[in-house]
Each structure stands twice: as C-alpha cells, then as structure tokens.
C-alpha cells in the first residue's frame, strides 16, 4: 500500500509550474490550462508523446493522425510573432514530436526503439560487424548474387525476394514482441536492418543498370 507521503510526492510530480503564470499544470500538458501558454516538452517516451502505449504493433495511421494533430497546435509557425521564449518552447515541442514520429512510423526504428525501452541496445544506426554467422553468410551470398545480376529482371527478382523476406521478418518481430521474446526480437531486428540495406543496394543497382541501358 502506498503511504500518504508517497501519494503526496506522486501528486507533486504530476504537476509542474507554468513558466508564464506560475500555476500548476499537468506535467505532460502542451499548454497551461490557466493562462494558455505553451509549455516545455515533458520527458516522455516517443509512444506516450503521441498518446500511445509502447507496442510494436501500434497503429501507424494513428501515429500519423496524432502527429499531424499535435503539429497543428505546436508548430513554430503558429508562434512566429510571439515572444522568443514561446517560440523556443514551440520549437522544442516540434523537435520532440518530429523525433517521435520519425521513430515510430518506421518499423525498423520502432523495433529498435522499443528494444531500447526494454533495456536492449539494438544500435540500428551504427555500423557494426554481424555476429550471427548464419546471417553473415546469407548477406554475403545475397550481395554476390546482386553483383552478378546483369539484367534488370534479375535485379528485380532479387529485390522481390528480399522484399518478401522483409515482410516475413516484420511479422516475426511482431510475434517476438507479443510473446516478450526480446532475444528473438533483437535478432530479427538486426536481420531487418541488413535486409533494408540490401534493398537499398538493389535499388541503386537497378538505377545503374537502367542508366546503362538507357544510354547504350
């Protein structure tokens, strides 16, 4: 049972002081309910910033909707003629919102972020050596096949296969998170990262081939 002191502490933590009218305002509010001033962004994870529960299977349409709804309210353009302090807070809010949106709309970033929330460092953005020998082998073979593909049709075939693999991996990640199997989620996220990179390479290769054939 929480004590009364705990409750008081929690109650205090639920409010911050509005910078403008000094009154109490809910810690995650965008605007003060008394004086209407825009507030500094609260410390929130990307899901909660958009009013969502942390979940890999989060509804992307909802992410989109909430993002746009919030942008309408806090975008710096709405504060262009306001004092510098309010402009700065609007900018900080928009930065936080953009970051949440960029992270959650993309399943790869979303997976890596959710892993980091759960204490697993997936480090999607960093170059690092593949530790999974099976994956390593697969990546090397796929790259080789791409190098050898000299027709657009062949590249398209490889692209289609990688695309289908990526979809399968996505559903695997979803299942892994659903059963709280973080190891599997992490492994599949790494795999998705390499598939993505490979898909980019197939695209580059196809454009190169198209240009070769176009000028030939």
């Amino acid at each position, binding site marked *: 049972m929480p004590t009364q002191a705990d*409750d008081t502490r*929690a109650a205090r933590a639920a409010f911050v002081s509005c910078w403008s009218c000094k009154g109490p305002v809910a810690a995650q509010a965008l605007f003060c309910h008394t004086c209407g001033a825009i507030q500094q962004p609260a410390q929130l994870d990307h899901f909660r910033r958009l009013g969502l529960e942390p979940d890999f299977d989060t509804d992307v349409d909802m992410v989109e909707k909430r993002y746009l709804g919030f942008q*309408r309210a806090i*975008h710096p353009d709405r504060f*262009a003629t306001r004092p510098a302090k309010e402009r700065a807070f609007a900018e900080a809010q928009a930065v936080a919102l953009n970051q949440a949106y960029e992270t959650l709309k993309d399943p790869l970033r979303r997976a890596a972020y959710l892993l980091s929330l759960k204490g697993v460092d997936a480090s999607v953005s960093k170059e690092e050596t593949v530790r999974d020998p099976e994956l390593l082998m697969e990546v090397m073979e796929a790259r080789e096949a791409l190098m050898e593909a000299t027709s657009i049709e062949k590249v398209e075939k490889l692209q289609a296969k990688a695309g289908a693999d990526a979809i399968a991996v996505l559903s695997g990640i979803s299942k892994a998170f659903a059963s709280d199997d973080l190891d599997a989620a992490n492994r599949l996220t790494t795999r998705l990262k390499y598939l993505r990179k490979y898909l980019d390479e197939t695209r580059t290769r196809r454009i190169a081939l198209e240009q070769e054939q176009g000028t030939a």
Partner: protein
Amino acid sequence: MSGLLQIHEPGETPEPHAQERGIAIGIDLGTTNSVVAVADGEQPEVLRDAHGDGLIPSVVALMPEGVVVGRAAQDLRAKNPDCVVSSIKRLMGRGVHDVKALAGVLPYRIAASGDSVGMVRLEVAGRSITPIEISAEILKAVKARAEQSLGQGVTQAVVTVPAYFDDAARSATKDAAKLAGLDVLRLVNEPTAAALAYGLDSGAEGVYAIYDLGGGTFDISLLRLQKGVFQVLSTGGDSALGGDDLDHALAERAIAASGLQKLDEAGAAALLLAARAVKEQLTERDSVKLTAEIGGTKIDFTVSRREFEALIDPLVQRTMRACRQVLDDARVTPKEIQGVVLVGGSTRVPLVRRRVEEFFGRAPLADINPDEVVAVGAALQAKALTRGSDTLLLDVIPLSLGIETMGGIVEKVIDRNTPIPVAKAQDFTTYQDGQTGMLIHVVQGERETVDACRSLGRFELLGIPPMVAGAARIQVTFAVDADGLLTVSAMEKITGIRAEIAVKPSYGLTESEMADMLRDSLVHARDDMEQRLLIEARVEAERVLLALDAALKADGALLSDEERAAIDSAIAKLRQAIKGEDRDLVNAAVESLDHATHAFAQHRMDRAVAQALKGHSLDEVEASMASDPAPDGRRPGRPAE
C-alpha cells in the same frame, strides 16, 4: 468540478502584445527576377510597377551616383558592364573555392583575395563587394516597391529559397534580408510556397510533385496534402542547374557557329540576353533568328526548335534523374502522383513540359503564372504567420548533415528528408591517448567522403581531460530550426565542457561583419536598437500581466486581502512603467511583480496537490487533466484523434 479541472483553449486568451502590427510581405528572391506579393485581404496580390510588371530583374548596378536595381540596371549594362551584376543568387553562400569552378562560365568578376577560404567577393565598379550585400540591394528595391504600393512601412517578410539551398546559402539569404532592414519571419522553400499558392489547400488531397526550374537552380519536391497540412515527403534537385544554362547552351552554339573567338564581358552579357530572347520565342515559334553585334562581329544565327531541343535535352534529362531520385526517396511511384505543378519561367519551354508529362504520365498544372506563383505562396505564408491560418507547412532538410571522422569519412548525423525542426545528438570519441582537443568539421551532402561534401564550418572543443583513446564521450548535437538553419554544439559528457557554433563562419557573415555592415547601411541605428529593446520589454511585461490576470481570475480566491493588495500594487506599478520610456524601469517592475506573486504561485500549487489527494485517486486526477482530447489537439495532454 473544481478550477483544477477546467481546461480552456489557449487561443481564448488575448494576444500578449496588442501593439499594431504591420503587413508582412512575401518575397521570391530569384536568380533572374524577384517578385513581391502581399496577402492582406482575401486574395493574394503581386505588387506591380506602373506598367503592370510584377518582375523586378535581379540586376544591380553600382553607379557613381548610387545603386540602381531592376530593369534600369539592366539597361545600364551595355555602357557600364563593370558596374552591373546579375544572377547573384548563384553565389549565395559560396566560398572562393566553389566559385573557381564556375568562373569561366558565369559573368562575374571574382575579386582577387589573399585567403582561399571564406566568402567569395566580387569586383564591381572598382569595389570589392559580397553577394550578400548585392542581394541586400535587390531586397531593398523589393521593399521599396512594397512600401510604395502599400503606402506604409514594411519590416517583416517571408523570403523563399530553393529547397535545395544548403545551410550556407540560407544563412546568407537571411543576412541579406537583415541588411535590407527586413525581419525574416521564415525562410520557406520555393516549391513548398508554390504548392501553397496553387490553392492545393482548396480541398486537394494526395501526393503532388512541384517541378521548379528557376533561373539558376532546379528543385523537385514531393508533398503530401491532407486537410490543409502540406507535408514535404522528399526534396531534391541541382543547385547549379537552371534556365540560365539553357541560355548558355544556345549562346555557346551561336559562338561556335559564328566563329567568334573570345568574348569580352559586355559581349557575353549581350549574347546571353539575345539567347534568352530566342529561348522564349521558341516556345511559340518553330524557328528563330538570333542576331547580335558583339565587338564589331555580327552574329546571325538561325535555330529551329528541334535543334534547340537537341541542345538542351541532356540538361532536361538531368532534371528527370532528380525526379526519379525524390520519388525513390519517398517510396512513391509516378502513378501515385495526383498532380504536377510547374514553377519557373523555363518551364514554359515545350520540351520541359513534354518530358515532365512523359515521366509523370499526366499533363502538368500551370494555371498560375509560373514566374509569380512562388511569391504568392510566400505572401500566403506571411499572412499565416502573422494572422493565423488553417494550413500548416511541414518541411524537411534537403541534404544530409554530418561530421568528419578519421580518414576523411563522413558520419551522417541527420539524414536528408528529415522533418524540421530537428535535433539529434551522436557520441564520438578520441582516437589518441591523452587527446585534449577535438576538431569538429561539419559537412553537408550525400557522399561518403568529406571531399565530396560541402564544408559548412569547423570548430574545436578544447579542454577534454587527458584519457586513454576511446574513453572520452563527446556528444555532438545538431539542431536545425524551422528555417532550415543549423546550430552545432559539442559537449564532453564526463566533464560537461561545451563548445557551440551557429554554422556560418565560412560563407555567411560573421557577427562583427554584420555589425559593420549594419552600421554602414544605417538600417538599424543605435536609437533603433534601444527602441527595439524597449518594445521587447513592454511586450514581455504585457505577457506577464495577461498571464497573471488569467491566474487571478481562476485562483484569486486563494489570496488573503493583504497578499492581494501587494499584488495589485505591483501590477499598478508595472502598468505605470509600461507607459514610460525607461526599459530598466519596466524590467525592474516585472521583477518586483514576480516577487509579489511568489506566495500566490505556492498556494496554487499546494491546492492542486491537495485536490489531487482529496476524494480522487491520483490516477483519476491525472487522467482528467491529461485526457479529454480536443479536435485540434490544443488542450493539454493527449492529442487529437
């Protein structure tokens, strides 16, 4: 319910500064022509001269009797080639190094300069002058036209830049506006402005492509429109390819055909002008004769549309490659595009239209004059920023930003097409034992190596405590604001040592250069500055009074008579101070009012906490403050659905 749970719209509170605001204008500062528009009434309007001409040629003549801008400057060129500058936009934010590559092609005389780094300077009428100063002259002329036409002073503007402009060019543009006495409310990307002008907001939904072939730059942007939000999905282009290049191609062919050996500056300018006229006429006619007399040699050269098209097709194909790239970046196929908007005079060239139509599989939209559409969009955005609006522009950065790491390799910190404003931090470390300093070299571009990217600036973080290699944690933060301007800061995380730059040392103006120029141009004299600070102090004081007023209405009952009296007296003193001219007095009165309300703030917080605990579980209270989604998301807590 108690006051705690009352939630009202922030928009209901009155504006913090009720001082009267002037009209904000929209400016398209173009390579060839500049246009100014205003959207004060219902319809946006391009401001024209007495002859009904909306275009102000972006040409500046520095004559002994003074500066001349526009058509008059153009007319001075033949007799005074040394005094006249055009196409200056191509040099905005460029360094000496960048320009060497262009020097043979473009009609500029680059001033000989001792240092090979830093901003390029031009030699005009025996003066050494920066592109920023020349652009400022154009903007002064634009401002003058607006003031004359509106019959009132103008100090605020939205200025457009090519989406593909890098950070240095954006900074340079903002500096130029400042020199011209204009406060830039926002830099807006030209294609985004064009989309806005197209009234694509009038219920249009879906993905639109904006194909913008300006005088000196080419931009292609994809925007998604939904319910008045203009979201840029991806943008690309070529900052060194424009309609000018079509003229050049023609001029070169004419030179080759006439056996002309070497052109002087005046000759080259005259020939380019003739070439542009031919390009324009070929839109309507199948064959045009180019005649010019250059340095005594008569040029008589007939070109058919077919020949012209063969000449420029490689350039047009280059723009199509950029189109393919942006579609790819946004993962959109040409079929998914709802419409293509053409911007820029050179999109009148039939071959350009044909290629665009082939690529996107639909006829492009060109109902608004392509020369004026950007300025109209800028004016609409100026109105939105000052008067409010239902539309919203969400833009992106056009080029990736990164820093140089060992071996001249670029580590990207922010990828291109990331929505702005954005801030991202990345950790780096030392590579030598005992290393106490770190050079941070900021670059922009898509390539892997530093040499192939654009250098934006360098700064050093000093005072890192000696540690073994790899032990220090240097956090580098890139922040890009809503204008697309970058600030970089670095911090050693263990000691908290910081260094920071606004990235503009190489190609923009330094603070002291800016101060000197402002002094020279007398745009903001000292008195002006004082006046500005006083106005700012008053604005802040008004804000404090309004916020307190709202607080007193909501929670005034919490005060004892004595406390209330102290606050009221402090309010009266502040109101008195605002009426005066003494800035320090205003600030002091704000401070004592702040002091007087200290206990009030405490009472309010205590009551909120007490109410939270009394009768309601904390979850309930929090939920009631944080939920209740409003349609526009403006209420505290959870967002709009």
